[in-house]
């Protein structure tokens, strides 16, 4: 099925997530969609698959306008989407999942017929899934195969895949690519959303690169596949052009003053972290007092897992974490706090602050353990000092959920104890205006001058380059070595985010 998106616009509040985006995917082709965090590629495919509705623009399917308002609409038009986190029902069996969500399901189910059909589909693509297994017990790759089969059985002519190669094994990836190529050869159109240059180059016929809500450019990748010998000569050139289109600008200049001291404060050896979707390995990382290490990479590549493990909130599957020479692996979170490790999460109101409590109650909570009774006058005075020092627009008895995002972040910083050995931060300035961003980093650099090491993840490359001493890149569960910021340029960073290191 030929898919044409014309002049798509989508706003989320003040953010123009899709700004006049046009894209044509020919039937029988695999079309890559690339872009860094917030480029708008997820928004675009969610519009096509009916998860969000566009503000304006036209969708043509085989030349006919389509009215897609919901995922069910999209499925009726033959558009199916495979999400990064599988949207299936883990407590149900494979066959039950296979039957679920079809617009054609008869009122009385026939599990036997469904099982027979499911086996036929699996045989066709060499998938090996037990129809009676519980979906929660399958690997991410198998759940992906199940979802592909389910969508095909529902008659989709266009398949959208969002970051499908994250968390699956090499053999599953090979099988997935074979399957997608075969579906394209049968005349279906495939939209492949990814940030991994290698995967896009190996699989896609064409690639569209998005940047800041707009289409930055489109490239024909078929010369890469024309002949294996020629491919090697074309590859660097085309990869270079993709990176140029993705970032398309010079990075900001590093502005951080040198604050690094010789003493190592955090050291990590052979760390292995597992979630249900990812496995991350960090062989070796040492943070020095006063040093800032920034983590770049597409969101959801395991940064949060790593940060929470460093803060002692998530136990590692293997490996060790030392703080100031003390082994804190598998020690309770309270020991990390005592060692001066603090975590500042990105979701300020869900993870960092407690909605329903006031600023002074937060101050008191941090001081908890001083005795049994709260000295109200003292806590209030302390809250007033913090409000003045951190320039928070609020009063001691203001509820934190009434504060603006910037003031919530100032409150989080005001609550940090001093002295602090390691500060672990997730998106330290997300959603803040320029003034607040500069102010936050002023405070953080001041902490570094007192000897605090900072480990932070951000989706803003400029922020990472401006304020880090060294940079780590996460790409689909893989972790790069830490690179001094002086050795970085857009090309290298782009390649690393694309999974080449």
């Amino acid at each position, binding site marked *: 099925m030929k898919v044409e998106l014309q002049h798509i616009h989508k706003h989320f509040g003040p953010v123009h997530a899709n700004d006049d985006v046009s894209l044509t995917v020919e039937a029988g082709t695999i079309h890559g969609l690339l872009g860094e965090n917030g480029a708008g590629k997820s928004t675009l495919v969610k519009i096509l698959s009916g998860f*969000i*509705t566009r503000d304006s623009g036209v969708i043509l399917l085989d030349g006919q306008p389509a009215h897609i308002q919901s995922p069910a609409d999209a499925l009726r038009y033959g558009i199916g989407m495979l999400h990064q986190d599988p949207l299936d029902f883990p407590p149900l069996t494979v066959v039950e999942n296979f039957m679920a969500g079809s617009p054609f399901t008869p009122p009385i189910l026939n599990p036997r017929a469904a099982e027979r059909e499911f086996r036929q589909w699996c045989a066709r693509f060499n998938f090996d899934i037990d129809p009676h297994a519980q979906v929660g017990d399958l690997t991410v790759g198998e759940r992906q195969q199940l979802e592909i089969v389910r969508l095909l059985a529902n008659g989709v002519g266009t398949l959208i895949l969002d970051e499908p190669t994250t968390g699956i094994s090499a053999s599953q990836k090979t099988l997935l690519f074979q399957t997608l190529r075969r579906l394209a050869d049968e005349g279906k159109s495939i939209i492949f959303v990814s940030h991994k240059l290698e995967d896009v180059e190996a699989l896609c016929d064409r690639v569209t690169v998005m940047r800041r809500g707009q289409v930055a450019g489109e490239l024909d990748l078929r010369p890469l596949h024309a002949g294996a010998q020629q491919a090697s000569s074309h590859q660097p050139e085309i990869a270079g052009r993709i990176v140029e289109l993705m970032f398309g600008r010079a990075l900001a200049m590093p502005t951080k003053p040198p604050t690094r001291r010789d003493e190592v404060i955090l050291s990590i050896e052979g760390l292995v972290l597992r979630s249900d979707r990812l496995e991350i390995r960090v062989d070796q990382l040492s943070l020095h007092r006063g040093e800032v290490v920034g983590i770049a990479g597409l969101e959801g590549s395991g940064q949060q897992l790593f940060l929470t493990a460093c803060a002692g*909130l998530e136990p590692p599957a293997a490996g060790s974490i030392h703080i100031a020479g003390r082994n804190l692996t598998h020690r309770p979170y*309270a020991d990390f706090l005592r060692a001066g490790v603090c975590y500042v999460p990105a979701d300020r109101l869900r*993870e960092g602050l407690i909605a329903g409590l006031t600023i002074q109650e937060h101050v008191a909570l941090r001081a908890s353990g001083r005795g049994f009774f709260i000295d109200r006058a003292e806590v209030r005075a302390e809250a007033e000092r913090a409000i003045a020092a951190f320039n928070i627009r609020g009063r001691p008895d203001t509820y934190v959920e009434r504060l603006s995002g910037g003031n919530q972040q100032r409150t989080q910083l005001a609550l940090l104890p001093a002295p602090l050995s390691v500060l672990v931060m997730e998106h330290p300035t997300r959603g803040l205006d320029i003034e607040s961003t500069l102010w936050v980093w002023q405070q953080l650099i001041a902490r570094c001058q007192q000897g605090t090491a900072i480990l932070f993840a951000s989706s803003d490359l400029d922020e990472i380059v401006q304020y880090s001493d060294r940079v780590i890149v996460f790409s689909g569960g893989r972790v790069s070595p830490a690179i001094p910021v002086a050795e970085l340029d857009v090309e290298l960073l782009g390649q690393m985010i694309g999974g080449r290191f």
Partner: protein
Amino acid sequence: MNSTIPSQTALPWLWRLPALVYRSGALIISLLLIGLIVLLSGASPVEVIGRMLVGAVSTPDQVGRVVATLSTLLLCAVGLVYTFNAGLYNLGVEGQVTFGAIATTFVLRLLYPEEATASLLPPPLTIALGVLAGALGGVLWGLLAGALHVYGRISEIFAGLGLNFAATGVAIYLIFGPWKRPGVASLSGTQPFDESLWLGTFGQTEATPVGLGLGLLALLITIVVMRNTYFGLRLRAVGKNQYAAHVLGVPARQQLLSAFLICGLFAGLAGAIQVVGVFHRLIPNISSNLGFLGLLVVMLVNFDPRWVLPVALFFSALNIGSLQLPLSLGLESSLAGVIQGLLVLFALIGRGLAQRYAAS
């Protein structure tokens, strides 16, 4: 083509009223509904209210029963203040009352065996030990629910309900088995204790100074703890956002278990008072459902202990006053339950609407 899905927060201006309007509106609607129900059952609402009030205060005996109910209700409600503030719906409070009563009965029977003619220890000491045992029994049952919730990851609602059935089962087994009355076993309970083991009362009424004193003392302590201590603040922090509280360094598990423990303690005391002050024996429904009523009281006051006393007093008066309805107006005494339930239901609806829609 232009199309947008309206978001949940985008509401017609009509809905954006001050929070007070939602809350008082809900109260007025619930009162109207109560009036309507009374009218449908063939009585005048004004007359019913009048009779209920008269029924609660017309004789010293009735006032005594209101105070006795209030004592037990206060202990249950005060305990629930801790669990509610920790974000827990501790429906197991009934079982904690029952198991407290069982523990009290056990100790009293131990110290005053059936064949004996006097308590082995001085009666006041025996009573004190019985009450202490009741508190420990409640703690045990509360911690059991807490352990199931914190370590077994079972919803505290199901853990509590399950333990309620278990406690009632144990009580009925004891009443019909090992602790049955000489000769006949019956639903009316175990053999009443010797009068020397009864709590002293205000005159000839059911109300006991000890019960009322314990209830008021518990309330006072709780108001101070929730408002002025780090423990109370940590409890509220955990209740409002367990993960954020954990990140900020509050030991969440410890706080949750403490809440279960304290609630069990007060509920167990309530069970002990029901045994030594009200029924003077163990009966199957020893809690008189005052644990559940305590849930309603605390929900109605939005978990703030400062308002527990007036509401608990009002509900106790409704409970006792409604007992006169069958005699005077030919109405079911369960009307009190309908009134209490509707008030709480609409208070919750009003609060929910205010939170969701009210203009800030």
